[in-house]
């Protein structure tokens, strides 16, 4: 089944990035797992209509971020201060990894959650390694606008991280 094949490819190639996108929009761990599942379901439903007009990466990130936007709009009434119950844990244990590194990653995730989607989206895509042109393609913006938003996002992130520093 073509749709299932495409979906498996999406999960193989983008499973971890999608989990991180979910983390950027969710309130806590449970919320993140729910949103991750919602994103996968949305991708499954949308995969039938994928005709290759855009790259698979553009398609996947658009569906994921749009689902994240909806999630924020529906959940904002119940939104609360981020709680420290979603520690960032690597799938493969690294003997060199220490508690401090995990705490830094968790602070980064919580700082990103505090950004508005306008700043959070380009920043999350940049952290995934995409360049301005690719981010502009996904977000439907000019590359110059992406650069401006990334500068603002970087400044806001620095402030949030400074506030969260022990």
């Amino acid at each position, binding site marked *: 089944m073509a749709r299932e094949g495409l979906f498996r490819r999406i999960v193989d190639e983008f499973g*971890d990035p999608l989990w991180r996108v979910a983390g950027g929009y969710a309130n806590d761990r449970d919320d993140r797992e729910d949103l991750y599942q919602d994103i996968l379901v949305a991708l499954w*439903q949308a995969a039938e209509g994928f005709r290759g007009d855009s790259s698979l990466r553009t398609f996947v990130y*658009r569906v994921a971020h749009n689902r994240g936007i909806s999630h924020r709009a529906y959940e904002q009434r119940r939104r609360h201060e981020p709680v420290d119950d979603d520690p*960032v844990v690597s799938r493969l244990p690294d003997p060199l990894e220490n508690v401090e590194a995990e705490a830094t990653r968790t602070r980064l995730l919580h700082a990103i959650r505090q950004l508005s989607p*306008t700043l959070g989206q380009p920043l999350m895509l940049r952290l995934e390694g995409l360049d301005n042109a690719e981010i502009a393609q996904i977000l*439907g913006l000019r590359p*110059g606008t992406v650069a401006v938003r990334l500068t603002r996002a970087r400044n806001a*992130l620095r402030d949030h991280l*400074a506030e969260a520093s022990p």
Partner: protein
Amino acid sequence: MNEPLDLETLAAEWRHDAGPAVDMDALRSELRRRNRSTTWVVAAEIVVTALLVAWTVGAVPGPSRSPLLIAWMWTYWAVATSLAWWNRFGQIRRSVVSPAAFARVSLARARAKIRVVRIVAGLFAAQAVFVLAYGARVSGSGAGGSAVAFLVASGLGTALWGWWYHGRARHQVSTYEAMCAEMEEGGPKG
């Protein structure tokens, strides 16, 4: 304090966050569950509509049957059901546009939801006029009492639904308005 943030270092930290393995069987079950749930809701809507129409037609004595009353009942439920369908399936079609376009469409849809509440309230008011007129015409009979009881019950149900739906839609409108205003800053491409 204002030293530049090293995005490359942060990116490396960010990409350490690995997601759980996707259980395809669990996902298939979830999809089946959602499809089943949609099927049940649609089936329930059809059954309730059919029962209400049958009950209304049956409750009105033959010579007094008002085609207009029945037409209003049908219109009321047909409009409500088709709007619900439009809302449900619009979600999938818009999921692949850019986030800025998605926010604009979502704002338009949230505003449309508020209009839906007004349309349903208008239809209900028109229906109430016909039902009350009918009740007055056949006052004292069981049919008139049943029609008015139905009106009160459906009015309470509609009011509760309208309060909940309208509140949710208003919240979405304000959220998407703020999002769109921020996203339009710097201008979308094209």
